[in-house]
């Protein structure tokens, strides 16, 4: 039986996966992937809530916005990564620690 709880369970699992990826991985691109997972989890939440409520399209439209925003964010993020790599010859997150002290 597929109900709202199932959707939310998948969404929560995605979200936790994204968080874990962001915390655990040291590769900047992997962290960007984690962010994408979190965004997808939230988009799934919107879609699921719309499906099990009054059948309008608000949640879908918001999901689309999130996808677009994620694409744009990924583009900006990858641009930053490329510039970072040009500067440091590395995409290790601990190399981006010049804010320390």
């Amino acid at each position, binding site marked *: 039986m597929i109900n709202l709880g199932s959707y939310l369970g998948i969404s929560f699992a995605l979200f936790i996966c994204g*968080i874990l990826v*962001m*915390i655990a991985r040291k590769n900047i691109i992997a*962290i960007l992937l984690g962010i994408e997972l979190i965004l997808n989890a939230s988009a799934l939440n919107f879609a699921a809530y719309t499906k099990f409520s009054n059948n309008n399209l608000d949640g879908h439209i918001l999901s689309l916005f999130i996808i677009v925003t994620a694409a744009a964010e990924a583009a900006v993020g990858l641009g930053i990564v490329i510039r970072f790599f040009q500067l440091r010859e590395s995409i290790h*997150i*601990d190399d*981006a*620690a*010049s*804010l*320390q*002290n």
Partner: protein
Amino acid sequence: MDYTFWTIAPIVLLPFFAFVINAFIVKKFTKLAVAISTGSIFVSFLFALRIFFDFMNVYSVGYHIHKVFPWFNLSSGSHVFEVKMGIYIDNMTSVMLLMVTGVATLIHVFSTWYMHDDPRFGRFFVYMSLFTSAMLGLVLSDNLLSVFIFWELMGFCSYSLIGFYYEKEGAGNASMKAFMTTRVGDVFFLLGILAIWSVVGNVSFVDIYNAIAAGKFNGLTISVFSIGVPVATLAGFSIFMGTMGKSAQVPLQVWLPDAMWGPTPCSALIHAATMVAAGVYLSLRMYPLMELGHLTTFIAYIGAITAFGAATIALIQTDIKAVLAYSTISQLGYMVLGIGVGSYNASFMHLITHAVFKACLFLSAGSVIHSIHCQEMPQMGGLRKKLPYTFFAMLLCCFAIAGVPFFSGFVSKDRILGDALVMAFNNPVYIPVALLGFGGALLTAFYMFRMLFLTFLGEPRDHHIYDHAHEEHLGWNSNIPLLILSVFTLGLFYSGSFTGQGEVNLFGSRNEWFSTLIHKPDAESLHHYAEYKSEDFGDVDTRDKLELPKAEYDPNHGMSEEVAHHVHYIHHVGAIASVIIAFAGIFLAFSMYVKKSISADWWAQTFVGWRRALQNKYYFDDLYIGKIIQKGLIPFNNFLAWFDMGIYDKYGVDGWAAVNRFAYTVSRWFDNTVIDSGMVDGTGWSVRAMNTILRWVQSGKIQLYFIVLIAVLAGYVWKLSF
């Protein structure tokens, strides 16, 4: 005549401004300074002359000008403490003003000759201007406080001028001696002012007279060494002590002979004519208080002892100025004697006549000294031919002081002696006073003519000095003052008659103007002072003086016919006695020093003990310097110095320093340990500790920040959910 500020005040202010201006310009423009000084006192003289003629014109006993201005006011609530200064001019003041300004003008003119070659020519005039303004201020004062201020100002000038030749050690010592001696009197004078203030609540003369008339002093006593002394006696005695200091009465007479270290014109002005007479003037002003305090007998004795004692010392002096100094003390003694025997009018007259002839004598002595550069009479002699004008002036003055009829000294001194004789007939207590008075008169005639004969007559004893006497150095400014002053040694200016007895009248109804206008403030006349109004300065004096009655000469002097007859009889006896005595003194001097029929050496060898006592000035200096100062004051001084250094400095000052040093150590420890180490460094340390913690948080690792973010968010959600 209308009196405003600008017709009275210039008398004092002109010499004072001359002093202020001269003090600045005297070094560069000495001649201008001298001219300003002399000119200002001459203009003062003109103002005084105007006032004098106004008073002679009104010719009334009660005529006076009294103007006041508030000096300072410390009243608060019902407690009144207001001090007023003012000007009080009555007949006595107007005569005194004329005398002071006139004599001062002539002495200033003389000084332009006498001091001309002195390196401190200008400075002398600076002091003289200040002195003259102070003396005039004293004469014009209407209250004891301003009298005291001017009194001290005069004293300052006196000390400065005594020590004028400060290169000589004696001059400095004499200045110090004058300061110390008059200080004794001045302290008492101040005490007297305070005593009067405590009773009257004011020190204005008019208020004091009113208080005496109202009986405010009656029954008031003050405890001195647990003996009840009437306040009037205490106040009167204290003020008389001021007189004794200033007018050089026994036992405070020691400073005046030493004051002769000063330049001779300053001796003439300060130590003969004006300042020493100011003491007598003060006693005259305070006469009702002296009478109320039953001090007159005491005063008469002090005066008589001074008059006789100083005359005896003058007998053996060889320094021409020393003779004059002792003669001044002696004559001041006569004035004080006059106050004591109630001869108020004659005492004041003697003050004026003495000022004139003694100023003239000093100026004559000054021109002798300046001409031969010597003060010792044994080296003079025969100077009559060299200094004829000086001889003439000195001869007239010697006649005056010796009491030869027709001269001023006879008029005034004879009245004092006559009154003393009247007192002696009425009260045996006064017999020694009269005897000392007449004895002093004999000695006065003797020593003055001894001085005159030794100086001007006989053969020159030191030919070197005689030949170098330069008459040609005498100028108009040395001779004219002498001659003017010597003219005023004639008695008729003061009495209106030649003999002073009122028999031969020259000025018609104005005969005896002196004794007609100047009256003793007795019990009856004191009540009139209640009507005396004082006016504020600035307003025109609108009193209609035509209502004042013209003063009439009263041949009985207010006494009944019978008493007056008796008194006149005694006065005639006294007059005849003083004429005989004066001529006897002159004859003795003549036969001893000109004829040489009496041997002076024989007298000197016969009365060796007396002579020694006189040479030592009755051992007063030995007593004061040897006993009181050496034995008393200097050990006391040393004790005080020891106390100051040994106790006060050692334990007080140094002890306080030790306390401070200890406090410094403690506070330094506190500062270093608590404030610096604990609080200042503690703040830094705690900041650094926080920094260490926060630095750990600010790792710069983005994932750590993210973990914290998540944790906070989770905590927040957790909080919202439950």
